[in-house]
């Protein structure tokens, strides 16, 4: 049954245990850290991005080859995204946005390979990434603008008597950003992978029902093929959405009076 269980693909297994913090030395007490299948794919994601970008740009050619051109296109894609959403002052956050975009993008693409683990299908990972963005925005916003950063909650041009209503709404929408940012990515990837697994599970189940079942399994097969294409699109779009929203939130920190 495990073969068609749509949840099984999200199970985290320890590859080897590392160390335990706290506790009293007995097994099970304290917080245990381990190298898991999730860790393995995080390492793989970072290794793929870093090796590709560093090796493809090794020759530093003025006239780029194909591999170098891809690196340059990714660079310019993210750089234009940052520049258009957060202005040239936002370019100091370009490495952060680039790292986020490539990490999520490659993790999503790796997750599309059968039997591979999808790092972004765990809420704690997406939440940690969105908290990183959120805390960067809040800390940089206060460091750069001081109390003026609170203007963010007071949109200009709003009459004074509406402010008691508008400001709390702005505040709540601001505070819910890390949740919406993380749940959007997590939910899309999780739901997509479950759907894909359910439809492919149908193929196996129906095929075991005899001749008519094999004929009927063509329907979930077509669905599974279509969904695979859709999931590649979703994986790329979600990485883009995460990066664009990061840029827009960073823009709030750089220019709080909008």
């Amino acid at each position: 049954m495990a073969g068609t269980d749509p949840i099984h693909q999200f199970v985290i297994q320890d590859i080897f245990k590392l160390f335990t913090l706290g506790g009293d030395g007995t097994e099970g007490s304290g917080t245990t850290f381990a190298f898991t299948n999730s860790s393995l794919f995080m390492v793989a994601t970072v290794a793929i991005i870093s090796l590709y970008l560093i090796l493809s740009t090794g020759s530093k050619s003025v006239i780029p080859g194909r591999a170098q051109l891809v690196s340059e296109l990714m660079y310019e894609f993210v750089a234009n995204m940052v520049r258009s959403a957060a202005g040239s002052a936002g370019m100091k956050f370009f490495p952060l946005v680039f790292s986020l975009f490539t990490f999520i993008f490659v993790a999503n693409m790796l997750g599309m390979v059968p039997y591979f683990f999808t790092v972004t299908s765990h809420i704690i990972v997406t939440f940690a990434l969105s908290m990183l963005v959120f805390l960067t925005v809040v800390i940089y916003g206060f460091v750069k603008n001081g109390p003026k950063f609170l203007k963010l909650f007071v949109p200009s041009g709003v009459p004074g008597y509406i402010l008691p209503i508008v400001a709390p709404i702005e505040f709540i929408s601001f505070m819910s950003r890390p949740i919406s940012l993380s749940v959007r990515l997590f939910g899309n990837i999780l739901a997509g992978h479950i759907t894909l697994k359910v439809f492919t599970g149908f193929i196996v189940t129906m095929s075991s029902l005899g001749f008519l079942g094999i004929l009927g399994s063509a329907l979930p097969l077509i669905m599974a093929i279509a969904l695979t294409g859709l999931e590649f699109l979703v994986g790329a779009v979600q990485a883009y959405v995460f990066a664009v929203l990061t840029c827009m939130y960073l823009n709030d920190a750089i220019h709080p009076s909008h």
Partner: protein
Amino acid sequence: MVTQAYAQEAAAPAEEHVEAPATDAVHADPTADTHATTEAHAGEDHGSGVFPPFDPATFPSQLLWLAITFGALYLLMSRVALPRIGGILANRKAIIDADLAAADASRQKTDAAIAAYEAALAAAKSKAQGIANESREAIQADLAAKRSAVEADLTAKVTAAEARISATKAEALTHVDEIATETAQTVVTQLVGDVSADSVRAAVAKAKE
């Protein structure tokens, strides 16, 4: 195989769970909860246990490795990869700009050369025109001088000739009386006989009046 590995892994916390509350009462509560759910999950083959993405027991490891890997990615990107790609793009832009500037400079040089050529051409033309004018004026002046010299010469000759003619005429006119006297004396002598020269002369003078 995957299921087996997971079951084994889950089996260990199940044992730990028994010992945990006895040793550390304060710490036991949250961990006991976690292990209990993990145990249930393992026991029923992921059927009704905790949903893996919401299993807090996996959070520390995930956060640790996310911090390590994303931190490494950020460092590699901000220190190595992005400056390098940015350098390549900036270098290319500099080369293109320099080439464009060089092309522009060449074009300006060409324009300057064309302008210089045209100026030189215009100067040469005006100089040639000047020379032509000068020589024409010189020739005209020379011609006029020669002509006036010739005219003066001719006028002088005409004047001299006229003077000579009038002199000759005057001289001739002085001989007219003498000729007339001689002629009249001869005619009278033939017709009448001798006549004195003085009376003939007086008669001629009388006839002339």
